[in-house]
């Protein structure tokens, strides 16, 4: 938000004594700059507005209606009754619990593993390129492909992991299915977490670490007392990004269990109501509720933990 002032100050400082003619030219230049700025941003802004902005409003509107494509004639405005239906439904809360569980467990484990991986990528002496390249593969690979790989790995008969713990099929039981879904999520996104953390690690001044080590700080102390405080903003951004992303979990569950044995996430449940059930009213209600939950999570992060949202410090430091 401070960009205009800094830029203006810079301008002023550079072309100090202004004659009238120069002032006029400058303001004309300013106006041209504004116009160009808007012109360049307009297409992107319009697309985002049309494809994300308008539909979300439309979704709120749909959520207030009884609107089932199987019975299109019964479409009517019903106020908040869809919300009562969804929030009073046990399936919703089961899915919500599953989603929250997956989000919390995977993000915590990813933070720990990701920090380790970031340190390895940052510090490693041999094979740095190989490590970084392999770490990028889970990030890049299509989630559905990874999910199939995990599914076949745990399928009795086919898979190399199927008989690891017991003779039964792990993907047919709730606890083990959830564990496998989380494993697949963690495998897929830990590298992404690690990359974000690595960017934070790069901000830690070498001298500070050296000084701490001279003063007799152990490796653990250097980590907790020097690195973590410097990395805090990067860690919080990574946590926020990953939490919101984990909350959207869909692909893995679709392929691994298709939501059987109460392993549906909220995204899965909304998809089922909408595409399978063709119930636009209920589907939209769930969409809005998911959106609200995500907004609350983001709000908590930003307010309580003081996450510097990327972009908020954006201007000012050109």
């Amino acid at each position: 938000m401070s960009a205009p002032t800094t830029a203006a100050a810079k301008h002023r400082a550079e072309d100090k004594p202004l004659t009238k003619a120069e002032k006029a030219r400058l303001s004309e230049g300013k106006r041209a700059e504004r116009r160009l700025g808007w012109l360049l941003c307009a297409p992107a802004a319009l697309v985002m507005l049309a494809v994300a902005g308008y539909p979300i409003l439309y979704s709120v509107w749909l959520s207030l209606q009884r609107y089932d494509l199987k019975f299109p004639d019964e479409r009517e405005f019903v106020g908040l009754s869809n919300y009562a239906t969804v929030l009073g439904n046990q399936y919703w809360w089961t899915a919500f619990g599953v989603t929250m569980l997956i989000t919390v467990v995977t993000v915590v484990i990813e933070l720990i593993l990701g920090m380790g991986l970031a340190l390895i990528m940052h510090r490693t002496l041999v094979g740095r390129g190989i490590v970084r390249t392999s770490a990028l593969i889970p990030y890049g690979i299509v989630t559905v492909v990874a999910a199939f790989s995990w599914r076949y790995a745990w399928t009795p008969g086919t898979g190399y992991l199927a008989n690891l713990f017991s003779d039964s099929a792990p993907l047919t039981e709730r606890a083990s299915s959830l564990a496998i879904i989380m494993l697949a999520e963690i495998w897929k996104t830990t590298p992404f977490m690690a990359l974000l953390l690595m960017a934070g690690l790069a901000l830690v001044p070498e001298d500070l670490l050296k000084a701490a080590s001279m003063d007799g700080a152990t490796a653990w102390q250097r980590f907790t007392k020097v690195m973590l405080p410097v990395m805090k903003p990067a860690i919080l951004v990574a946590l926020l990004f990953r939490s919101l992303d984990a909350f959207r979990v869909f692909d893995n569950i679709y392929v691994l269990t298709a939501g059987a044995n109460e392993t549906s996430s909220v995204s899965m449940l909304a998809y089922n109501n909408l595409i399978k059930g063709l119930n636009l009213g209920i589907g939209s209600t769930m969409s809005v509720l998911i959106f609200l939950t995500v907004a609350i999570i983001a709000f908590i992060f930003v307010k309580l933990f003081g996450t510097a949202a990327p972009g908020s410090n954006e201007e000012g430091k050109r």
Partner: protein
Amino acid sequence: MESRGLKWRWGLLDVIVVVFALIPVLWIMSLSFKTTNTLTDGNFIPREWTLENYKTIFQTDQFVRALINSIGIALISTIIAVTLGTMAAYAIARLDFPGKGLLVGVSLLIAMFPQVSLVSPLFDIERRLGLFDTWPGLILPYITFALPLTIYTLSAFFKQIPWDLEKAAKMDGATQGQAFRKVIAPLAAPGVFTTAILAFIFCWNDFLFAISLTSTERSRTVPVALSFFTGDSQFEDPTGSISAAAVVITIPIILFVLFFQRRIVSGLTSGAVKG
């Protein structure tokens, strides 16, 4: 002495990371090369090798069509998103105009948006507009979700380009537009290219939109087609076919990662953290 022990320790950790990252990929490759008879033997390394699974998938319309859809849709989305994103990122990094903060905020909001929240309204809107189950029906949401990524990554990148060059060009009589095309664009090209790869990976990966906004082979992408390969269609046992198809769509990603590893890392981190 100590440094050698340290080297070994790091080396061991490296090996663990590489193995952890590659096992699922190697496993699906292994499955794709197994013969029908050995498919269910549970061995990690195939006892009998075959290319039969690959032949099968390329002989069916279902997969080839989905592959064409995937490539076309992801490429078009990437090109449009990167073009629009480049323009916006340039404006955000270099120009001074009111509403800039708002645009940055909105694109951040979209980046964090739960995509399923858009599925129900888009499903209805696209059905009415006749966009449901068409290429544009997927391209539009892909552009929208790839845009924040491109705007962030590129505006971070553009900020590192020396301002003065553009100023010098303008002093030599170039207009803002010319300065952009002749001076900044060539300098920005590597960043734009990296961003394009990231955007392409995003579109290539998508499953939720693809499965919700398509219903036939007309626009179904490979990830969705994979999930529809079933035993009771023309495939006897889909495991081999799914694995082969999975390997085929993983190849471009592996190639990108191999060739542009350094750039992808810097693109991801600069976009996300330096923002």
